[in-house]
């Protein structure tokens, strides 16, 4: 097996290659503004580092968020299209699950939180690094303080709100290496992974901007 994993649901643009036993190459960059530019060159670098071509890949795993939409879609669209071109399966994994899998916390329970902007976090609670207890949700930190009280936390979203998340552990950002390892483990156990569809958790802002569609430079 050769699994290509990628995640662009958070400020991290992260890619990894897993051979069924271990991660053999990976790349992570944190840059919230350039997911579209950074992802393909990162894939190219990771493949070169491992000395393989993309057509050797037998499956793809992609983080489905939750995450801010524009960045999130870069990874999902890339994974979808790789799958089409290569004729290989594309699996979706919750980005929070990959963060939990890499959590540097002895034993649970704990909470994972990423930045959802607009003074909110994407979050879920875990019994241990492999077992999610709640559905991913988006909320204001103060509104969930009661639900996460006393739980250690992981993720950049937790770091932003120390009042709600006083004890924050590593890692800050998700890595495709963790995503790949989690996917490989679940696939080896015969689990069926979800389809690679985005977890937006919010409805689109249904507002037509002023001068919508005006694209001709003045």
């Amino acid at each position, binding site marked *: 097996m050769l699994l290509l994993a990628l995640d662009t649901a958070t400020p991290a643009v992260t890619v990894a290659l897993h051979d069924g036993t271990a991660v053999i190459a990976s790349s992570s960059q944190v840059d*919230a503004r350039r997911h579209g530019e950074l992802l393909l060159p990162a894939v190219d670098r990771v493949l070169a580092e491992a000395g393989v071509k993309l057509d050797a890949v037998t499956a793809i795993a992609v983080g489905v968020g939750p995450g801010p*939409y*524009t960045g999130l879609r870069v990874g999902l*669209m890339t994974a*979808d299209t790789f799958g089409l071109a290569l004729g290989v399966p594309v699996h979706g994994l919750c980005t929070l699950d990959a963060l939990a899998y890499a959590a540097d916390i002895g034993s649970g329970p704990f909470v994972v939180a990423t930045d959802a902007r607009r003074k909110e976090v994407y979050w879920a609670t875990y019994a241990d690094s492999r077992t999610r207890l709640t559905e991913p949700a988006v909320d204001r930190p103060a509104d969930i303080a009661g639900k996460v009280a006393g739980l250690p936390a992981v993720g950049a979203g937790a770091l932003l709100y120390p009042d709600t998340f006083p004890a924050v552990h590593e890692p800050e950002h998700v890595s495709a290496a963790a995503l790949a390892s989690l996917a490989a483990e679940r696939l080896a156990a015969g689990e069926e992974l979800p389809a690679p569809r985005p977890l937006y958790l919010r409805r689109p802002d249904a507002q037509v901007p002023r001068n919508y*569609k005006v*694209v001709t430079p003045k």
Partner: protein
Amino acid sequence: MADEPLVLGIETSCDETGVGIVRGTTLLADAVASSVDEHARFGGVVPEVASRAHLEAMVPTIERALKDAGVSARDLDGIAVTAGPGLAGALLVGVSAAKAYAYALGKPLYGVNHLASHICVDQLEHGPLPEPTMALLVSGGHSSLLLSSDITSDVRPLGATIDDAAGEAFDKIARVLNLGFPGGPVIDRYAKEGDPEAIAFPRGLTGPRDPAYDFSFSGLKTAVARWIEAKRAAGEEVPVRDVSASFQEAVVDVLTRKAVRACRDEGVDHLMIGGGVAANSRLRALAQERCEAAGIRLRVPRPKLCTDNGAMVAALGAEMVARNRAASSWDLSADSSLPVTDPHVPGNHDHVHEVSKENLYS
């Protein structure tokens, strides 16, 4: 001809997910998935709704285009994609797909300009573009007069709208008349039964001191809305057919007058009209009439090729391949304000490309 470049083009600059396949100047497939119905209740295109729809529609639309064309992805000579201008988040979905597809297939990638594509698409209908060609591009997003001596390298803007795009004016007047969205087709339909001279609406920027090739539709839009409101305030019925016909006449009169003048001034004997508003029946008829009178040959593609589609992107991509233009690099970005003077985004930048000021992450 089998040795002409076989190119797949992807278009996602607004609300249409378009995937087209051409061989040289021959159209093989033109698959389009539109999210227009999802935007109708908002009276305009909602960017996030469009972007979500692009992601869902992309793979099925590529598959449909390949099936329609009866070609294998392995046989493609290149992948072209709209790099801009357009809605940033929507463009990025198409650019991501095109990059992944080109990379996975080992094909060159061509990030191309949406406006140049609107011009180049006419090659699929009427054969190679005359050089130079004058182009009038009119849609919900653009109203421009462009002069091109080589569609892959030289597109010169002569004029553009200083406020609303022509298609936007149609949408807004349709909204005032409660005719729904998009406004173009429905106003065209009502106008056929109305009198274009019933109401004298203003012709924007047509005074002797006004810029010869620029357009303005904002004043017209306001004048029409005021006229309708005055009727309503007086308790009178609004003559929808006459208002539609008179408003439409004001728009197409200015468009065609300025386009023909630009051809005359520049000594160009071909005019092409593209963009969604080129589907308007009165624009086509009046342009034909005025071009004939001026000895200009008019080229207007069939309506389906005038609206946003992937075939136009493929057509320009094929021209890039045929003329040995440099491919784009893997860090190609979506550029919501890509200048019309850049027909494509080559990999070895010989100019410093300004990083988008917008945060594409949010």
